[in-house]
């Protein structure tokens, strides 16, 4: 199976042109093509995972094969290759599974949309790029697909291109990521300059023995900029909340479960690079930790259901990055997996709600539980999982991160993580209490979504419950012995940490119940009391405004200045030369007076001048 792993991206890659050029007119057929393709990939992916497990392919003994895509003898060899190790296998499974479910869900969600077929085309293109990114065996290839997923995200965010806001959000997402990619690209240029290869394993072999730490640090930091953008870490997180302009399935698949996780995946892939540089690791850890807290605080005050989930996503991604930073690649990937399931579930649930209500402001919802039982219950399960209550998936993965932070002596980050856990529980249940309980708002008549939509919800719900067990501490040969860096280490369960995290989670839920569980005016009072903080949070720390100012005033101002310079100064100089020529012509022409005696005079004067010029040496000789 593994030796056909390269087919996994190929299926959806073929589906895209097929849909766009052939079946676009036939809507349902297009959907089928897309689903069939990703389904095939899913089957392959499971097969690959199975083979990895059975044939004992481990992180140290991966399977790799490649063909040269572009080569310049002796200088450059760029491979198109496949690298399969447990990391890849897991990632493949997660991506194909979520993608499959989301596409099925979309049949119901997008039904009736004019761009139905195109939508599935884009989804297929995205899946292809994402899977390509996952199987990539070198930096160049990963960057290649990295950019392509960026493109798909741009296309899908701007899918409703008639909405200016959507178009703007797409642009913002692409440009923000571009900034990050610039860093990423420089990063692996530095690596190439130092080692002359892009290949992960060759680099992994070479890096430990490389002396010039400063150079390597520079490279590592630059590479890390990539994830900062893709995984929406502070300060490049701004694009992700706006990305919610896209259709909800897109938010679920791309901007929650898979693409945004690509950054974390890259960190895992390049882990050898960072692991050797404690300083960089620290940076990563704190960027992640800070983002987690920062985003959580914003999520607390948002009203739009998708934005709350978006900030929660940012926050959780921060968690994963932090996990990488504290040195536990296992924990990071583990959380990536579980998060993929329950966050996708949350978004799809939200989508189902929006689909029913055409409404996104949670404070205009309420009592949805009565009308949409499936949606609501699955949503709650996912929320509990995210909040980290045992025995749900989220609990295990988050606990592993906290344990790692604590265990590796990052106490500060540990506390911070715990705080985030509290906030997470709080804002999730704030959402739930407001939207799903309480009494119906007037004018809103919700109805449960069709099976195509609820089906995926149920599957994901199941996963959100069980997925955690693969990595539970009491499982001897679990996730941690499967996906790891360096030595497979089985961390012993740290019950203190477990207990505390559960406690804070419960506390959060309780607080949410106190404030929002029943009618009360406390929230308003608090908002009044701490107005400054409240506005700061509502306005997301004014970071968007800052970037706006930076672009409009600074960048465009500079551009205008350049433009003026080009049009007036530079052009002025060259046109000036032309004018001088022309004018001097007009002036010189006046010498031609028309009077023949003047002409004669000129002639004789010239003769005299020439004579003197020639005679000068002779006369000079006479004088001496």
């Amino acid at each position, binding site marked *: 199976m593994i030796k056909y792993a390269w087919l996994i991206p190929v299926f959806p890659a073929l589906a895209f042109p097929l849909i766009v050029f052939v079946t676009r007119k036939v809507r349902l057929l297009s959907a089928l093509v897309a689903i069939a393709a990703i389904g095939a990939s899913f089957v392959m992916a499971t097969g690959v995972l199975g083979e990895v497990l059975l044939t004992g392919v481990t992180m140290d003994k991966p399977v790799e094969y490649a063909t*040269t*895509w*572009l*080569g*310049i*003898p002796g*200088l*450059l060899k760029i491979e198109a290759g496949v690298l399969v190790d447990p990391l890849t296998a897991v990632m493949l499974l997660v991506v194909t599974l979520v993608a499959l479910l989301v596409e099925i869900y979309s049949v119901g969600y997008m039904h009736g949309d004019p761009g139905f077929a195109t939508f599935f085309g884009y989804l297929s293109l995205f899946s292809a790029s994402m899977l390509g990114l996952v199987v990539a065996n070198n930096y160049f290839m990963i*960057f*290649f*697909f990295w*950019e*392509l997923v960026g*493109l798909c995200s*741009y296309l899908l965010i*701007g899918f409703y*291109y*008639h*909405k*200016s806001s*959507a*178009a*703007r959000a*797409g*642009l913002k997402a*692409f*440009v923000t990521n*571009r*900034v990050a*990619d*610039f860093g990423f*690209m*420089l990063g692996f*240029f530095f690596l*190439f*300059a130092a080692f002359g290869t892009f290949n992960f394993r060759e680099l992994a072999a070479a890096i430990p023995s490389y002396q010039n730490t400063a150079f390597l640090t520079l490279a590592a930091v630059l590479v890390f900029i990539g994830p900062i953008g893709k995984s929406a870490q502070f300060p490049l997180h701004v694009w992700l909340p706006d990305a919610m302009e896209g259709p909800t399935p897109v938010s679920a698949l791309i901007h929650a479960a898979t693409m945004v996780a690509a950054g974390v995946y890259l960190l895992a892939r390049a882990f050898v690079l960072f692991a050797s540089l404690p300083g960089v690791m620290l940076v990563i850890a704190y960027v992640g930790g800070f983002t987690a807290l920062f985003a959580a605080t914003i999520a607390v005050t948002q009203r739009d259901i998708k934005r709350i989930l978006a900030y929660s996503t940012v926050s959780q991604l921060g968690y994963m990055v932090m996990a990488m930073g504290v040195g536990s690649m296992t924990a990071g990937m583990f959380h990536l997996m579980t998060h993929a399931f329950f966050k996708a579930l949350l978004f799809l649930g939200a989508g189902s709600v929006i689909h029913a209500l055409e409404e996104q402001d949670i404070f205009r919802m309420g009592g949805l539980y009565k009308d949409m039982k499936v949606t609501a219950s699955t949503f709650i399960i996912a929320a509990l999982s995210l909040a980290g209550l045992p025995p749900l998936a989220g609990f295990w993965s988050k606990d592993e991160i906290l344990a790692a932070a604590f265990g590796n002596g990052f106490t500060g980050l540990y506390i911070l993580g715990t705080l985030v856990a509290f906030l997470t529980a709080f804002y999730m249940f704030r959402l739930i209490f407001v939207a799903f309980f309480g009494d119906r708002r007037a004018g809103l008549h919700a109805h449960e979504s069709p099976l195509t939509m609820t089906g995926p919800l149920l599957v994901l719900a199941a996963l959100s419950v069980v997925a955690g067990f693969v990595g539970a501490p009491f499982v001897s040969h679990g996730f941690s012995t499967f996906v790891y860096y360096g030595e497979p280490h089985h961390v012993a369960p740290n019950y203190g940490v477990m207990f505390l995290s559960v406690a804070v989670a419960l506390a959060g839920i309780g607080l949410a119940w106190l404030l929002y569980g029943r009618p009360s005016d406390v929230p308003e009072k608090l908002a009044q009391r701490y107005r400054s903080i409240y506005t700061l949070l509502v306005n997301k720390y004014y970071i968007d405004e800052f970037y706006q100012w930076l672009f409009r005033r600074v*960048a*465009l101002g*500079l*551009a*205008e200045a*350049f*433009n003026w310079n*080009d049009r007036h100064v*530079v*052009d002025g*100089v*060259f046109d000036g030369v*032309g004018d001088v020529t022309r004018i001097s012509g007009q002036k010189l022409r006046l010498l031609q007076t028309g009077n023949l005696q003047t002409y004669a005079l000129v002639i004789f004067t010239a003769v005299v001048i020439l004579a003197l010029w020639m005679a000068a040496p002779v006369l000079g000789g006479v004088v001496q």
Partner: protein
Amino acid sequence: MSFPILTAIMLAPVVGLLLILVIPEREQLTIKITAAAATSVSLVLAILAYVLYNKGQGGLQFLQDIPWVPAFGINYSVGVDGMSLPLVLLTAIVIFTGVFASWDMTKRVKEFFIFLLMLVTGVFGVFISRDLFFFYLFFEVAVIPMYLLIGIWGSTRKEYAAMKLTLYLLVGSAFALIGIIATFLYAAQHLGQATFDIQTLATVKYDLGFQKMAFFLMLIGFGVLVPIWPLHLWSPDGHVAAPTAVSMLHAGVLMKLGAYGLIRAGVFLFPEGARYWAPLIAVLCIVNVVYGAMIAMVQKDLKFVIGYSSVSHMGYVLLGIAALNTLSLNGAVAQMFAHGIMTALFFALVGNVYHKAHTREIARFGGLAHQMPRVAAGFLIGGLASLGLPGLNNYVAEFLIFMGSFTRDQALLGGLLSFRILSILAISGIVITATYILRVVKNTFFGPRKPEWDHLEDAHGVEMVPVVVLIATLLLFGLLPSLQIDVINSGITPIVAKIEAAKAIGGIF
């Protein structure tokens, strides 16, 4: 002797031109078809040559020599190597699509196609010449038709732009001519025989002072064409004023003449001079890239955006030349090709919109994707190409240039500045490019539908030929770059060999 395929490529337009001369003016369709036929012959032959070219063997192929002016050692000698072959192909593609892009031309059609074919003949000639004299001669042949084409069929400030363009190009070429003659005389002394054959000239050992002088002359001469800042102003004005097909040919091919000449007659003949001036080129190329892109960001007219984006993109070519190593030079040539195709695509589409909407003011557009989805898609793809999206030809080119210039680790200004810093600055252009291109796409094609444009019909029928052909080309070489790079590399190798053989001298600063 075998079939002179290159001469045929060049003369096919001439034949078409002569045929059109005898077709009465009112037979517009016949004229257009004749032009299309002539150019398609060139295209087919060019593709044939590209396929038949023996990469393994490399070097100049499809040679043909006819003694021309023995007294001066001038021969009509043609041949292509890995560097010129892609550019011949580029020219063929662009002119072919250009004819279709000007299918809706109705004003003085006969003269238009006559001049157009005259122009392209010159361009072909430049790329296939192995003889510096003919190289220059063909180049100049291309200039005057350009003046008339822009002057008669142009749009905004056409007469001013046409004159400006012509004078810039001619003054520039003047320096190149001096350089060529000086080289010729120098070589004639050392070889004891008069020759203009580039390969032979390259065997001469020019002393350092001469190299500095000659390369500088070439730099100005061909730099104007590239266009190198601050000699670039003819290009935005020219692009904007020129009619669609001419803009395509002009931005698509003519600028490449400059870069090509700079490599062929500059770097190849005077490697040491090149080393000496490289830092200057590098600095100017940053201005091109960043400054050009910034200016493009605030343009109001679609064509001005594309015009300045060309300035910016050709900056990458300059960077590739300045870095003077295999990767970068491969990238530079690839970028010439890729940019040519990409920008031709842009101009074809903008021309299409302009022809129907009679305006190019971005502010007036918006939501055009509703009325013209195909145009929008094409434009978006062009935009993605120009911002260097993987999977499209430009990415490969830019990537190679960046790699090349980045791996060049040279200290400038006594260590104050490193070449690597310069290349990083230049690479930052990809961000600005993404910004302005996608902003234009957003403001022009996305957003709510504007009823005032409902009368616009989407590109269809013949109008789609350029779009399809050009996009297909971008994808082909973007997904299978080795088809392109292997050829180019076979042409770059000897040049790099000369550069490495040259004694390592410091740059101007």
